[in-house]
């Protein structure tokens, strides 16, 4: 009881104010969308929204989302079950290999395909590339859920006379629903936000259309209205997922550690399944890696500029570090309130920061461009505004990590430290900080990787003359200089790889507790 009790002394007004400011910043893009709608006026908005072009984009966006989400859900659930519940040989290796596509940004993956097979464009190509890039978003949470699932449930179902197949349908699948829905939502939101990959595969969706519109007419109402529709799609997905998840209590009842499940022997199916997994990994990992190697070897001699590579690398690393530190620092007050001072206000502030997850980078960038031009011209085209964009986009990752880190430092430790005579700041330094440091580090690493591979917002907001690995890669591959683009892509993949490996470990640990 004492472990969960929250001290009511000293209502943390400064923390509250800081957290409120952070939440307000996170909500800026939504505010921009509302403002854009109102200022455009209904008549004009109606004219801009209800036209054949919007319908075409809506159709493209929804058929790609529906197709990719379905494929990712099926593939991700199947691979998760194979890794967690079957007697598949080499499961650990497969688990890492099946998460590996996350280390290759989707726009690098599409470059890898299109540079080798130029015809891999349109709906078919887009569906193939995004599915291969995003199915780990389902594989990781579903395998974590399977690992946490008490096998006693399945055994009870067998004892009640259900065959294995029916048990999966009636007992296991309903338990996996939150993980599956969460993964599917992640895939869908990433698809709505995806710009680079789809632009390269010449498959127009809202995001690419907004970008093109922005390039041609700059900050016009046409782009803004498309952004409004895109945000509505995102909010629709969010509420859909919330409803689908329902209120059922799906966690394990009772205490104690679940026994590891008895694994299903695959028997004669082992060989074909191994072949299938092998092909999946070949398509999702070997093709992009192979393509990169090919272009590195054949293309670099003539077009390679080592000096430029070094400059952009330094810029990317600096921006990544800056973004990571700022985002984690901003996440601190929000997470602190959520963990230490639970209540409707702290919940609301925390939820506000999660919108970044659902908002496409293009909308955040558009919002900040508009605000930069109209409200704070001094900040427009500066690194500050770019870092703010990163913070809005990646706050959710930081908040989640800082939150779980803070949970490692229960308030009773503060009480003990105070009773031993240490002041508040001293307690923070000697007790809280050492305990949360690993979590802060993990959060910062994730944000760092996300910033280094961020393309859309960087394209719109980077100060003139600032090129990052992602934007330089983009301008090279855009002009079909595939060989010149390869070193930049390779560096991004190499930087992302450790964080991806961390994710597979994270999922393992998350359910062990």
């Amino acid at each position, binding site marked *: *009881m*004492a*472990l969960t*009790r929250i*001290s*009511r*002394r000293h209502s943390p007004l400064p923390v509250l104010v800081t957290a409120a400011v952070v939440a307000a910043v996170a909500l800026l893009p939504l505010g921009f969308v509302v403002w854009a709608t109102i200022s455009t006026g209904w008549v004009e908005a109606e004219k801009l929204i209800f036209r054949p072009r919007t319908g075409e984009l809506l159709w493209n966006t929804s058929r790609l989302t529906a197709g990719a989400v379905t494929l990712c859900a099926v593939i991700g659930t199947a691979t998760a079950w194979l890794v967690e519940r079957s007697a598949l040989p080499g499961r650990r290796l497969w688990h890492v290999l099946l998460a590996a596509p996350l280390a290759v940004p989707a726009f690098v993956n599409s470059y890898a395909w299109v540079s080798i097979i130029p015809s891999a464009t349109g709906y078919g190509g887009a569906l193939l590339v995004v599915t291969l890039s995003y199915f780990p978003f389902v594989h990781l949470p579903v395998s974590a859920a399977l690992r946490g699932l008490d096998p006693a449930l399945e055994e009870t179902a067998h004892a009640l006379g259900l065959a294995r197949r029916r048990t999966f349908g009636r007992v296991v699948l309903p338990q996996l629903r939150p993980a599956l829905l969460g993964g599917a939502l992640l895939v869908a939101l990433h698809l709505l936000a995806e710009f680079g990959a789809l632009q390269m595969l010449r498959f127009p969706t809202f995001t690419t259309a907004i970008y093109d519109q922005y390039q041609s007419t700059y900050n016009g109402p046409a782009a803004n209205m498309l952004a409004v529709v895109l945000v509505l799609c995102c909010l629709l997905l969010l509420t859909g997922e919330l409803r689908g998840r329902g209120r059922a209590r799906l966690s394990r009842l009772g205490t104690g550690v679940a026994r590891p499940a008895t694994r299903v022997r695959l028997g004669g199916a082992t060989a074909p399944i191994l072949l299938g997994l092998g092909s999946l990994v070949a398509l999702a990992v070997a093709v992009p890696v192979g393509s990169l190697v090919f272009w590195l070897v054949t293309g670099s001699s003539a077009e390679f500029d080592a000096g430029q590579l070094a400059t952009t690398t330094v810029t990317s690393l600096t921006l990544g570090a800056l973004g990571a530190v700022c985002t984690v620092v901003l996440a601190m007050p929000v997470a602190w309130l959520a963990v230490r001072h639970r209540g409707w206000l702290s919940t609301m502030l925390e939820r506000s920061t999660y919108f970044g997850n659902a908002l496409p980078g293009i909308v955040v960038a558009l919002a900040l461009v508009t605000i930069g031009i109209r409200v704070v011209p001094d900040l427009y085209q500066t690194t500050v505004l770019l870092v703010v964009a990163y913070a809005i986009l990646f706050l959710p990752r930081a908040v989640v990590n800082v939150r779980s880190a803070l949970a*490692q430092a*229960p308030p*009773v*430790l503060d*009480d*003990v*430290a*105070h*009773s*031993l*005579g*240490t*002041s508040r700041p001293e307690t923070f330094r*000697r*007790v809280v900080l*050492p*305990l949360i440091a690993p979590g802060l580090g993990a959060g910062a690493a994730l944000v760092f990787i996300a910033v280094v591979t961020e393309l859309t917002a960087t394209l719109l907001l980077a100060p003139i003359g600032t090129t990052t690995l992602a934007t330089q890669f983009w301008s090279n591959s855009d002009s079909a200089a595939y060989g010149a683009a390869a070193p930049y892509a390779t560096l991004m993949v190499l930087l992302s790889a450790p964080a991806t490996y961390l994710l597979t470990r994270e999922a393992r640990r998350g359910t062990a507790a």
Partner: protein
Amino acid sequence: MTSLMIRGVTKSFGATEVLGGVDLHVPAERLTAVLGPSGCGKTTLLRLIAGFDDPDGGSIAFGDEIVFGAGRSVPPQRRRVGYVPQEGALFPHLTVSDNITFGLPKRARRDRHRVPELLELVGLDVRVVDRYPHQLSGGQQQRVALARALAPEPSVVLLDEPFSSLDAGLREATGRAVASALRATSATAVLVTHDQAEALSLADQVAVMRAGRLVQLAAPATIYGSPLDAGVARFVGDAVLLPGEVRAGRAHCALGTFEVRTSEFDGPADVLIRPEQIHLHHNGSGVAARVDEVSFYGHDASVRLVLLPDGPQVTARITGESTLPEPGARVGLVVSGDALAYPA
């Protein structure tokens, strides 16, 4: 060390009154147990003494120094209390020795010279100094937590259900070690617990709390032998309560007539007898009863009986060596000693 004086302390969380005016004097260099069921406000009282929360009213003084009251509230870091929470709450990132020296000034932290002495005091081997909390057993963690609380030589030591997470065997040994360490340092200590055996066996005085109020404050033997009311009597031990009547200092009930120990009144009463006072006879003497159920615990056994012809039900405790009666058997009940009686 100093005494502790609590006067008229009240505390509410929202609309719920948790403490409704508590007065408690904890004499210096004595171990006082605050005993009560969960939710009675005892942990809240402890947190108010430590300064983690402020009372709504009343005052708290350590010796002559008022730490709360008259518009003054000394923050916890300046109250010099030693606090031992549930499950120890050792700092997980620090070794045993760094945990113990946490509250000492910087120079003393580096010297570590008090560590062996404190470890010995709580009955731990010196070899554990460089271990981390997760490498210790639950009982060892609690001992380190006490050593950490004692290191800065606090004026009062507060223990919040420190043994409740330990399993039965460890609980007793750890409790004894902690109590003897507290006595050896002449500490003024408050132990909050819901376990009556723990309170009675370890403390010099026991304060029984119920629904946010202090009901009785006395030595353990007095609490058990002369509980203030039937509720306290039942809380500090098993009890058989029978309807009856008191006339001229003698209680009359279904089990017979007994001297009344404390109460001085006449009229209808609840007569209280401890199960260990009831003896089973198989030779026809005593009040006739039928055996209903027997629970055998090894060292003793408790026998539930129905007084013939039709109740009430009573429980007797008999030693493990005596022959256990079969359910359904008829026996005679004889009560030894005197009884307690409360006006009905």
